[in-house]
């Protein structure tokens, strides 16, 4: 009953005019970021952090979460019209969505994508509402050892499931943890790896790392594409932005199934929207009466994956809000935003700040309605963004990234760092090292070390503490399984040769 009251109070928070405005701003910017190449949800959220200082934390977090799920809507537009996923998770949408567009059904593809995203996004938020409290109650039993093994599991899952090589995923993870050790050690006051640079005493800011790795490196790739003349061609929208009766009947099942698949996969760390959309696509192909149409413009191939990758965002918020442990790059940036506002997500947040948690969760119901309106009648406006010449767009993105980095501390070091991490991100992409694990481990690194040292202090230096409880043993076993998961998946036909790299 108390939870129900909190949920209702959450609506009172999110329906305040100021929060409605920030929800709108978040989903609006999210759609634009999803449509445009170059920024993506992680960098988009990170860039906004400096400009939201001084704002009410609830409003700021509502806006940033709006960007997170808004980008998924925008990402499908480029998948359908130019066969270039605005978000990695939209990769499956580009297969049949682009074929539908070529067949003159771009309007129907965009419509089913928006409707599917709305329905599945709402299914996901209902799941988040239902599962958050039980999981948060369970998390109250967690001590430092449990938290350490939980973070260890999140990192191994992301490292092994992101990208084509588990070793490279692990390398990226450890590099992120190493970067996290730069700065003053909070327990001993000892500076570590600062190279006598005063700015490094506070550590390397995750905003500059995220913006460099995701936005600047993407600009480098885009500029290279302009030089090579490999920029994609766009198909114009023809026909009504609505579905025929037959298309609607064929889509409703995939939308529901995609919504459920997406939510379940989203809760698991590391899996993310890409795997959710692949699983939805293969499920629909198996269940379809016309499997031969897949790859040639089957509407189920758009409805299912697009629904799955939207529902996945709500699922991804479950571990973030209830355990305080993100399962991917974008949620790691959101965790960083929470921490910068002095808010620690986790079970106690549900007890201490129910207004914030439920205001945020309930704002997603409202945001999904706003996104449906933005992405159906107003989709033509967003499509116009694709007409901006890339040669104009990329320089603007790199400049916005610089403003965002400089705005945090007014420090020139941060500018040089985004350039450095931009080059690192570009090189990593060329050699197939995923960057999402690096971001996740950078954000979790400090907490992970703290939990490790606290646990070891409690046990008097005996590492057996990590195998003492049922929770830690389960998490260690799950970590080991996650390391071997890529080998299992590689034997599973739909995942053969599919790059699982998550852009965000």
């Amino acid at each position, binding site marked *: 009953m108390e939870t129900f009251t909190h949920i209702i109070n959450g609506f009172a928070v999110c329906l305040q005019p100021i929060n409605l405005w920030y929800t709108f701003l978040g989903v609006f910017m999210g759609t634009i970021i999803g449509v445009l190449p170059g920024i993506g949800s992680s960098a988009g959220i990170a860039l906004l952090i400096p400009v939201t200082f001084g704002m009410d934390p609830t409003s700021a977090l509502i806006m940033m979460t709006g960007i997170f799920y808004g980008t998924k809507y925008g990402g499908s537009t480029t998948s359908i019209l130019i066969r270039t996923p605005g978000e990695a998770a939209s990769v499956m949408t580009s297969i049949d969505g682009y074929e539908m567009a070529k067949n003159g059904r771009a309007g129907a593809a965009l419509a089913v994508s928006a409707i599917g995203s709305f329905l599945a996004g709402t299914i996901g938020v209902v799941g988040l509402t239902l599962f958050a409290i039980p999981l948060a109650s369970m998390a109250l039993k967690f001590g430092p050892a449990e938290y350490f093994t939980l973070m260890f599991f999140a990192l191994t899952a992301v490292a092994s499931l992101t990208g084509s090589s588990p070793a490279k995923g692990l390398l990226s993870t450890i590099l992120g943890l190493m970067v996290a050790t730069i700065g003053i050690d909070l327990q001993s006051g000892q500076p570590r790896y600062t190279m006598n640079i005063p700015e490094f005493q506070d550590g390397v800011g995750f905003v500059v790392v995220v913006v460099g790795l995701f936005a600047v490196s993407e600009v480098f790739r885009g500029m290279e594409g302009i030089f090579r003349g490999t920029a994609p061609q766009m198909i114009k929208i023809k026909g009504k932005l609505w579905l025929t009766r037959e298309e609607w009947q064929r889509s409703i099942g995939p939308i529901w199934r995609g919504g459920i698949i997406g939510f379940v996969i989203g809760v698991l760390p590391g899996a993310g929207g890409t795997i959710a959309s692949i699983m939805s696509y293969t499920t629909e192909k198996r269940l379809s009466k016309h499997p031969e149409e897949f790859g040639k413009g089957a509407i189920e191939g758009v409805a299912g994956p697009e629904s799955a990758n939207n529902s996945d965002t709500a699922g991804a918020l479950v571990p973030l809000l209830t355990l305080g442990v993100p399962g991917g790059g974008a949620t790691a940036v959101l965790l960083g935003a929470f921490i910068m506002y002095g808010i620690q997500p986790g079970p106690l947040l549900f007890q201490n700040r129910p207004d914030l948690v439920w205001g945020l969760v309930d704002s997603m119901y409202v945001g999904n309605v706003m996104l449906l309106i933005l992405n159906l009648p107003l989709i033509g406006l967003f499509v116009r963004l694709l007409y901006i010449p890339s040669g104009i767009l990329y320089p603007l993105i790199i400049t916005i990234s610089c403003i965002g980095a400089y705005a945090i501390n007014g420090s*020139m070091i941060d500018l040089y760092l985004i350039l450095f991490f931009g080059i690192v991100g570009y090189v990593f992409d*060329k050699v197939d090292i995923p960057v999402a694990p690096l971001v996740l481990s950078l954000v979790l690194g400090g907490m992970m070390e703290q939990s490790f040292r606290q646990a070891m202090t409690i046990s008097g230096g005996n590492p057996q503490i990590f195998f003492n409880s049922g929770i830690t043993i389960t998490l260690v076993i799950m970590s080991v399984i996650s390391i071997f998961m890529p080998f299992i998946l590689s034997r599973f036909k739909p995942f053969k040769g599919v790059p699982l790299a998550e852009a965000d």
Partner: protein
Amino acid sequence: MAERVIFVCTLLLAGAYFWATENLPSLEIGDPLGPKAFPRLLGAALLITAVFHVLEMIRARKSALVAQEKKDPVDRVSYMVVGGVSIWTFLFFLVFEWLGYMIAGSIYLVVLMSVFNKGKWLMNVLTAVLFSIGSYLLFTKGFGVNLARGLLPF
């Protein structure tokens, strides 16, 4: 070739990290593990990753079934574009505080747009200047963010 370079770089990085960790002054008061324990674990994990990488290289050579994503090759174009943009961005940062965001940003953008959006001078110059002024006003007056003023008095 790239895989071997990654392997060697991983080993070098692990060595450098171990060396830097061992050179940290020890102030282990009230904390039995001290600031070196976790970094030592990371160094060891990096070495294990290098071994893991070698095993993957051997497995890939044997099976030759590794999924290769279609990517642009790294060649002269890559070095030229990424190197050129990086150097130009570095120069932009060098004069950023001296010239100020509006002047430095306008020059930076005009040059980049002239290279990547060739032949459209008017569009490029107008976009660069208007964007620099507009974003400066938005961030400084709208969001209260400090950006370098440089030579300009406002």
